[in-house]
């Protein structure tokens, strides 16, 4: 009897293990690449016999869910999409990413790999990159007889000339924390940084000049109420034809040329490199999305196999063809993909890939808090058109506060 029970138990256990071994649980973000993957997964299932349980979630829901599951140490997630700059450092420090041994990273630009690696080992596969560009209205530029701005001085002159009662000459994010990423390239082009050698340095002369310039531009030529505007608010204005120039991430290109979403004709929308600043021309180019294997996964071999397929060259090419700015270099060299992509977008990508800086925010665990703090400095600058006498003191205060955040997580002076 006892023997029978043991055998029965063993059979059940083996059954459970083998049933588990044939499944992977994948958490995707609501993102065009997630959609593309979902459509392709049936092919993968048919080819491998592995059942893929997919969930797609909005990005902040995804973070909440992953955090809860991993923190309780009883997660069943095998593979997931992740935002390296927003959560990468925290996830890595908590030991939630599995190091990706045996993955061929040779097709990825070095700037992207800097984010994917912690120490010597890569922990995530870069999926999508985005970089800062200048969107502008070709028709308005032609009417005003203006050339596309190449420097910040040109940018200001153009904004002044294009501004009317109805149309803002220039727009960029003004809503505190949300603006931090878009301000970053301005700071770089002035020769400044948010962090340097693990310390906050955005109170430097260069950074302050950039913050003042950004504030002046938005206060003088920006849309009304810009201090409460992020991309959600500015994009509709651009689509409604109320903005002549807009600096933001390249990811919005598809939506502003889509006739179902925009009132501006696609032929009138131009993309250019962010104008150069007094010191440099280093727009940010960041890995906005990556994919990782969960350290807690019980099916690591299957998970590795899935992630190799899900981030393959073929799918990257498909992604670029459907207007997703993929991280893989090979996609951007593929003739078929290039034939379909916008030439200006491709040119701005190759400029950013060569000259860009791989962070668009202070790269640290407490990035959310740091963004709130820097956001206050941005708002002050916009409210005073860059002329605030308190700006330097305010920035020094916030630098101190960000340094404290860095100390709290043991990242101060570490780089």
């Amino acid at each position, binding site marked *: 009897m006892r023997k029978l029970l043991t055998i029965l138990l063993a059979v059940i256990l083996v059954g459970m293990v083998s049933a588990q071994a044939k499944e992977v649980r994948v958490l995707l*973000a*609501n*993102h*065009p690449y997630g959609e593309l993957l979902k459509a392709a997964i049936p092919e993968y299932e048919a080819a491998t016999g592995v059942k893929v*349980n*997919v*969930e*797609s*979630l*909005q*990005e902040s*829901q995804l973070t*909440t*869910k992953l955090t*809860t*599951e991993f*923190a*309780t140490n*009883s*997660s*069943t997630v095998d593979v997931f999409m992740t935002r390296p700059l927003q959560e990468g450092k925290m996830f890595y420090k908590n030991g939630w990413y599995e190091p990706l041994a045996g993955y061929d990273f040779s097709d990825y630009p070095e700037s992207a790999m800097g984010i994917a690696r912690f120490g010597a080992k890569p922990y995530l596969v870069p999926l999508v990159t985005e970089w800062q560009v200048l969107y502008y209205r070709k028709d308005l530029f032609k009417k005003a007889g203006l050339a596309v701005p190449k420097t910040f001085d040109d940018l200001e002159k153009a904004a002044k000339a294009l501004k009317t009662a109805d149309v803002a000459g220039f727009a960029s994010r003004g809503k505190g924390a949300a603006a931090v990423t878009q301000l970053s390239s301005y700071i770089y082009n002035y020769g400044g940084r948010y962090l340097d050698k693990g310390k906050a340095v955005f109170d430097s002369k260069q950074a302050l000049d950039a913050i003042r310039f950004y504030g002046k531009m938005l206060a003088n030529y920006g849309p009304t109420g810009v201090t409460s505007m992020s*991309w*959600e608010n500015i994009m*509709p*204005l651009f*689509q*409604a034809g*109320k903005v002549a120039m807009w600096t933001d*991430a390249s*990811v*919005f290109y598809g*939506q502003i040329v889509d006739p*179902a*979403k*925009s*009132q501006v004709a696609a032929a009138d929308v131009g993309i250019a490199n962010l104008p150069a600043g007094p010191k440099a021309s280093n727009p940010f180019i960041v890995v*906005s*999305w990556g994919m990782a294997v969960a350290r807690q996964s019980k099916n690591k071999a299957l998970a590795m196999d899935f992630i190799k397929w899900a981030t393959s060259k073929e799918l990257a090419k498909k992604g670029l063809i459907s207007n997703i700015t993929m991280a893989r270099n090979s996609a951007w060299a593929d003739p078929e993909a290039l034939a379909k992509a916008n030439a200006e977008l491709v040119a701005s990508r190759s400029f950013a890939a060569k000259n860009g800086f791989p962070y668009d925010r202070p790269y640290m665990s407490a990035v959310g808090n740091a963004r709130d703090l820097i956001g206050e400095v941005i708002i002050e600058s916009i409210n005073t058109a860059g002329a605030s006498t308190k700006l330097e003191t305010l920035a020094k205060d916030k630098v101190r506060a960000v340094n404290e955040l860095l100390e709290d997580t043991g990242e101060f002076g570490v780089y």
Partner: protein
Amino acid sequence: MKPHPLRKLGFALILVLIAGPVLFPFVWMLASSFKTQVDIIAWPPRILFSPILENYRKVFQEQNFLKYFVNSSIVGVTSVAFSLLLGLPAAYSIARFRQKRLSVLILVARLMPGISFLMPWYIIFSRLKLMDSYTALILSHMLIALPIVVWIMSSYFETIPIEMEESAMVDGATRQRAFLSIILPVSSPGIVTAITLSFIFSWNNFMFSQVLSMEKTKTLPIAVYNFVSYAEVDWGAVMAAAVAIMAPAILLTMIFQKYVVKGLTMGAVKG
């Protein structure tokens, strides 16, 4: 005497002033749910536009919102039903036997931020293999629904004169019988209020469902986010989904409201 025309006008004006700001977002939402993305963002807003049904097609065909409706209904109805089953006798007992400490203890569960329950729940439910099950969602929603029922009903039961039960018991009824046949019918307005509030809580709950549900048991508030993508929001579909989600809740409240008023007057005469 007929009311003065100026008074009538004044009344209408006040009505518009009060109802206008409250109703405006609803009107906007309803209108946007029939608009294209271009019409939604158009400035000045388009009062006249050619309405489209595309957004509703996306909600019910592409995303299969009926499934989420069924999920939300199962969770909402069951959690409210079990909360009444446990909560009504508990509230009665608290009201009649003055168990103040117990009621404070129950209130603590309500006052604690819901997020602090998430981790323990996740651990418990995943060990019990109850993730993505209705059971997990129903139990989690009861944690809020039950205190709502207990708190509304215990104070309601206290307002019912104890003589009513006593006279029933003099006539030979047991306490249970008195509770079922006398107290509960008289309390219907309170019960309806408790049902409405706890059901709306469950219907709108986001945080618990977000962590405890997966594809199979996804509820409506989570499903709305299917239309919010990275760097892209499909406003028309979000609005259509919002209309679809609010409609049953508004309808239920309107139906129940009638009973609330009826029950109130009934209680007044009898009490």
